[in-house]
């Protein structure tokens, strides 16, 4: 197990190298001219050329890449085009709000999603199942911006308990976290239900029942442990998705997080930030998936880690 983890971590190095190259090439592939954005909406060509030199964008690609890479290795992510601050600092500042938001969204949605999934599996075909699953499907087909605006209009505005936008007090997290989690909860609920139904008719569940175990124990220990494999996959994916900052939710609620930072950076073609953010996201995914893979092995001993 330990060797597996170490191997996976070592494996990450070449992967990240390749990824860095990909990310770099990819960003350069995007159409646009950061120098022009930097110089401002009414800058002349001369001003743009000056900006280009200033930003170091006149150097050959390979040089730019190596420069960036060596910075990366030394933990220096460069400076943003937009605000001239250190990229690491800017991302660092946006990271915590997103982490809070992601955690809050994740916790409620996963807990509720699992519960709803299990309940509707247990009540398969009954009215509870139909109601819960319709809600879940609503949650999936409801665009997050819609839900966010609804909440703003009908919860935030009339009552003044939660902020309409921004993150100034802890309670402000409630609505964005709810919006963010809604689709995750729905996805988790549908997924859990399906996995649960599949496992529920295995012979070993019959054995567990034959022991006269309480239903809760049969449900959560015997069935869920086995149903968790696909559910955890989904969980990992969703968490990554949340941590990447749901762009929409952050814009709707003006949440000072990574998603918004990303949008701003894309709009202003702030390449150092985009690059760093994408690298961060990739890293997050690799780590999360490593955790997920480890969890697989913990949950299902038949899956051996080689």
């Amino acid at each position, binding site marked *: 197990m330990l060797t597996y983890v170490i191997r996976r971590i070592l494996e990450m190095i070449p992967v990240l190298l390749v990824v860095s190259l990909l990310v770099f090439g990819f960003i350069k592939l995007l159409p646009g001219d950061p120098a022009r954005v930097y110089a401002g909406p009414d800058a002349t060509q001369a001003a743009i050329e000056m900006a280009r030199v200033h930003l170091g964008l006149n150097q050959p690609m390979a040089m730019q890449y190596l420069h960036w890479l060596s910075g990366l290795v030394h933990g220096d992510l460069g400076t943003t085009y937009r605000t001239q601050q250190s990229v690491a600092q800017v991302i660092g500042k946006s990271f915590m709000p997103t982490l809070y938001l992601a955690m809050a969204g994740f916790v409620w949605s996963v807990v509720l999603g699992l519960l709803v999934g299990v309940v509707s599996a247990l009540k398969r075909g009954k009215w509870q199942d139909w109601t819960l699953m319709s809600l879940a499907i609503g949650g999936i087909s409801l665009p997050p911006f819609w839900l966010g605006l609804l909440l703003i209009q009908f919860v935030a505005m009339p009552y003044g308990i939660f902020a309409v936008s921004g993150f100034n007090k802890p309670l402000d997290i409630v609505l964005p976290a709810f919006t963010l989690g809604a689709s995750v909860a729905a996805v988790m609920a549908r997924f859990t239900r399906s996995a649960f139904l599949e496992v529920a008719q295995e012979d070993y569940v019959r054995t567990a029942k034959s022991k*006269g175990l309480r239903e809760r124990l049969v449900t959560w220990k*015997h069935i869920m442990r086995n149903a968790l494999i696909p559910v955890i996959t989904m969980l990992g994916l969703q968490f990554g998705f949340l941590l990447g900052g749901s762009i929409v939710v952050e814009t709707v609620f003006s949440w000072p997080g990574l998603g918004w930072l990303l949008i701003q950076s894309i709009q202003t073609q702030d390449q150092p930030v985009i690059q760093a953010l994408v690298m961060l996201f990739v890293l997050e995914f690799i780590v999360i998936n490593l955790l997920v893979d480890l969890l697989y092995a913990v949950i299902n*001993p038949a899956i051996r880690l080689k």
Partner: protein
Amino acid sequence: MTDSPLLEITDLTLSFKSREGLNRALDGVSFSVHRGEVVAVVGESGSGKSVTSLALMGLLSDNAVIEKGQAIYTPDVNRRYDLTCIDERTHRSIRGQSLAMIFQEPMTSLNPVLKIGDQLTEALFDHHLCSREQAWQKALALLDQVRINDVERVMNSYPQALSGGMRQRVMIALALTCDPQMLIADEPTTALDVTVQARILQILRELQLHRQMAVMFITHDMGVVAEIADRVVVMFRGKVVETGSVEQIFKAPRHPYTQSLLAAVPKLGDMADSHWPKRFAIVGEDDPNVVLEQQRTADYSGKPLLDVRGLQVYYPIRSGILSKTTHEVHAVEQIDFDIYPGETLAIVGESGCGKSTTGRALLRLVEHQSESIHFQGKEISLLNDRAFKPLRQSMQMVFQDPYASLNPRLTVGFTIAEPLLIHGMAKSLKEASPVVAQLLKSVGLEPEHARRYPHEFSGGQRQRIAIARAMALQPKVIIADEAVSALDVSIQAQVINLMMDLQQKTGVAWIFISHDMAVVERIANRIAVMYLGQIVEYGSRHAIFNHPQHEYTKRLLASVPIADPSRRVARQFDDDELRPSPMRPLGAAVTKPHYKKVAEQHWVAI
């Protein structure tokens, strides 16, 4: 009130819904079980034994409908339930604590993601019967009682790491944890070697005597019936056709099915004077007086078909949070054997000694090492997977766990037809159809069964499906791992005859892994006795049955139950006897055993 039976089933009628309508599985079943009584339920495979017990437990699958009937369960004076119609809550309160069940298929009945220890103990503290610590101790004691080696390792293992017999014993322990008043045991000893089986029977009997536990014992092994039962219920095609005390049934069976059943029971020693294996007499088909022809198919003139040298399989045991391998289970320890065309080699031995592992290694389903493996004179141990693939047609296996080896999403008809299609032996499903129908018929199933899914069959039926699939390809070697263990003797006889027919027709060699010594005596040309991963005695059937040399072989033969209640003996067990374990620290070197030649074709390890 005391003389009212603990369980009384009256007129239980049950059907399964299917697309063709209702399939009746039970048709007016009635019998009763009294306190402290062992009732053996015997009957044809697929006659409804398991369904009856599942109905009592309230664990039938969704498509089952109880049409009529009652099952009155009276655990004590104040409580009286009709098990067919009580609500789920009440049923749950009875299950496990008062009414426990050992399921027929131990392989799929254990939760693959929970440790054995957990599965054994959870019921105890879920019912608030004792603390965790006590539960653990009790589980250890139970496992020890059912004679499992390395109790600690097993408690910390997951089910996949256990052999078939070990899982079965875990199931037995599981059912006994809460000291139930009534135990339903569905074929609890099919995967156990006779020494262990004898031991289990004794435990059950003790419980029955001391704690007045009632046992409903489903089995097809008439020897076991004779050994343990007070009364016998005979089932046939969903009906109870005969009930009576064990003596009565054995002495004077009335129903034709019971008669044929008893007639078909192979007895140890039947073959003492025959050099070659013999077919079974089929009641009603073959005249019992005719001397059955001998099975002279083994061809020792040429080279062996399969020649295995120094086969060795170790399973790593991981422990600690870092999951480091600290020990290894030496499941198969440098064994040599060979098999000739048309021959039947039986591998017998204690449960958990590595028989299945040997088979799986031959088919490359587990990682293994070997000095050499020659197949038809060709070295195959070094072939890569791609080069090995064509050989798969020539080597087939019937898995010890037939249910798990059938894809639950495919109809069994397709499952049997698939190998034919893969190897181009049939061009289309249409072409495969008659072949499949023929195969199903030959194992005693109906062609219509091809449409059904694996879960719609009884244990014995699934086993026959697995056999049919293995035979479909007409391979050169078939490894049959406990392939007939779940069959009642009449079907067993039919299937074994079928195996012999095939041997005659195609010269297939069987590697027959079995615990049933009587069957082994009947069909084996040669026998390998395994103990702790090694072959301890190896020789012709004749030599081994008549002159067993090794200590273990002797014990094995002595433990075979005798299908005659009047010759019931009280066995003595030596509880202090050492139970060695195949688990060794990592890197422990083991030397290959040396053999002494006792006679022509007969070696024993020294």
